[in-house]
Structures are given as C-alpha cells and as structure tokens.
C-alpha cells in the first residue's frame, strides 16, 4: 500500500497576512528576528516601565496580602495565585477565555498586586542550558 503524498512548504511561503483586526492592536514591540504579528494585543507595562506581554504560560504570582479594596473577582484571582500559576491555568480554573483573563491580570499588574514572570521563548540564539534542563527534567519522569 502506498501512503498519500505531501509536498513540503518553506518559510515565508504563507499567503499575505490578513489586515489587522478592527480592535486597536499595540503596534511594534517586535524583537529581532521574530515575524511581525499584527494580532499582538496583550502588551502590558510593568511598574518598572518594562514592556511585557502576557503569554499563555506567563506565571502570575500575588505580591502580598489581599487588600480590602479589591473587587471580589480580583480577590478570587489573587487567592488562586498565592503560588505561581500560568495565565492558562487561571483561565481554566476561572472558566474565562484567555483574553478576558489577560484584562483582569493586567489590572492587577497595574495596581502592583501581582507579579508576572515572563516565559522563555524560542530564539535565534537559544539558551542551550534551558534545553538541557528540560531534557534532564524529562529524563526523571
């Protein structure tokens, strides 16, 4: 029996990207060598002015005791992330879509109530020690 046959594609073969969505996207902020992504919506500014983006696996940690001034929704979220939890896990536990989750979290970051720990993403010059750490961790499974 002969399997069906695929034909290889190559980088940059994509059709031209669709026009940006009507919602205002934060422009720019492109790191070197990464493709332009018109749909990058979740750019946030930390207390130190550093720009960070909320990823599915950005780890969110509550900074301190929950102040009485917060809304019940915020209190719930703060209780969930007394130990670090990814945005994806928060979204799953709270039953909220990812983008709604990022709105809530961004408010808390702006208020200085939570800290966001950025993920390590694929890079042109990857940190080999990270790859090695992952291999080592998997070996122990």
């Amino acid at each position, binding site marked *: *029996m002969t399997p069906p046959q695929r034909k290889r594609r190559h980088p940059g073969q994509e059709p031209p990207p669709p026009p940006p969505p009507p919602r205002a996207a934060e422009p720019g902020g492109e790191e070197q060598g990464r493709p332009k992504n018109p749909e990058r919506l979740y750019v946030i500014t930390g207390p130190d002015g550093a720009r960070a983006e909320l990823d599915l696996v950005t780890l969110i940690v509550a900074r301190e005791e929950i102040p009485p001034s917060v809304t019940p929704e915020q209190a719930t979220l703060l209780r969930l992330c007394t130990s670090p939890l990814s945005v994806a896990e928060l979204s799953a536990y709270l039953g909220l879509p990812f983008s709604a989750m990022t709105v809530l979290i961004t408010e808390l970051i702006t208020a200085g109530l939570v800290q966001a720990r950025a993920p390590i*993403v*694929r890079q042109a010059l990857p940190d080999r020690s990270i790859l090695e750490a992952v291999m080592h961790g998997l070996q122990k499974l």
Partner: protein
Amino acid sequence: MDFKSSDTIPGPRTEDHLPQTAQAAVKIVIVGGFGVGKTTMVGSVSEIRPLTTEETMTQAGVGVDDNYGSDSKTATTVAMDFGRISITDRLVLYLFGTPGQERFWFLWNGLFEGALGAVVLVDTRRLEVSFDVIGRLEERGVPFAVAVNSFPDAPRYPVEELRTALDLAPDIPIVECDARRRSSSRDVLMTLMRFLHSLAMTGALV
C-alpha cells in the same frame, strides 16, 4: 465579569501548586489532525489533571465584502487542552494539545512563535489529516518532530517511506509512539528536545 461565587471556584489541588521559586515556563505544542491522540499524549505525561483554556477568534480577512453591522466575520471558540511538567524548582514545561481546525490555532498569538517546538502526531490510517499542519509549521519555521501513533489496525510503513510520503527534511526526527503510555510520550518529547538541542548547536534554529 461574573464568575461563580469565590468559595466555589475550583483551584489547583494542594499537590498542583508550583513552588514560589518557579521563575519561568516554556511550552511545547502537540499538533496533528482530528483524533490522532493529542489529548491522550498531553494527559499521559502531565503532572496535573489536564485543563482546558479557550479563546474566541475572529477570523479576519474572510468575508470579502465585509459589511459592518451584519456580522460577516466568523467568530470561533478555540479550545486548548494543556498539561504541565515541573522541570526544576525554577522551570516549568507546559504542553498544549490543539483540537479543532488547525487554521485557527495559528491565529493564537504567540502559541507557535514562542514555543520551543512542536510534536506532530500522525496516524498512518489517515496520514493526510496531518499534512496541512506540517506545512504551516514549515512556513513559520517552527521546529518539529513527527510521532507516529501506533494504532493497532494502522498500516505500518518503514520510516524512510514515511519520510518520503510526508516530504520531510532528512534531519527531522520520526519516531513511533503509544500516546497512552507516559514513558512513550516522554520519549517523544525527549526526541524533540534532542533535535532542538542539535539545531541550537549548529545555529540552525530560526
């Protein structure tokens, strides 16, 4: 934003809490056509009960005559299964399995761009259901390994025949697996990691 009253909110079980020292996370995406075993693989290696997150995607540029007011844009809810593996007390690995229509996964901002790499699951009874996603990974320069899920009644092809059929570059790893078994799924992830490491050594990673 109305989620349920705070005392009924489910949260992580005690054993599912990450240590305070957890500094950063990395992610790997598991892709493949309908029913190839993506959810099974995420579940078999995850240390937490697999969870689901979702997002509503508006597919821009679909309606050619885009008249506002009448809702001509297609909004689709994209759900994503995911699991987690603690690597060290500082580093966490998340695995995302992507059900549904693959063209929507690629609208998920940063999912593939930020991932260390991807695992493509294929089922030799229906190889063609994984063709499109492989092409999309190639277009975006996302490094991947191919795992052939060994369903009992599936035809078995020699690896080189599969490589030809899938038109894969000679260096792309192809391994057999049983996604239901943790050790087998772990070995698939190890294969991907070794491949990524070799790309890093040769400076070939995009």
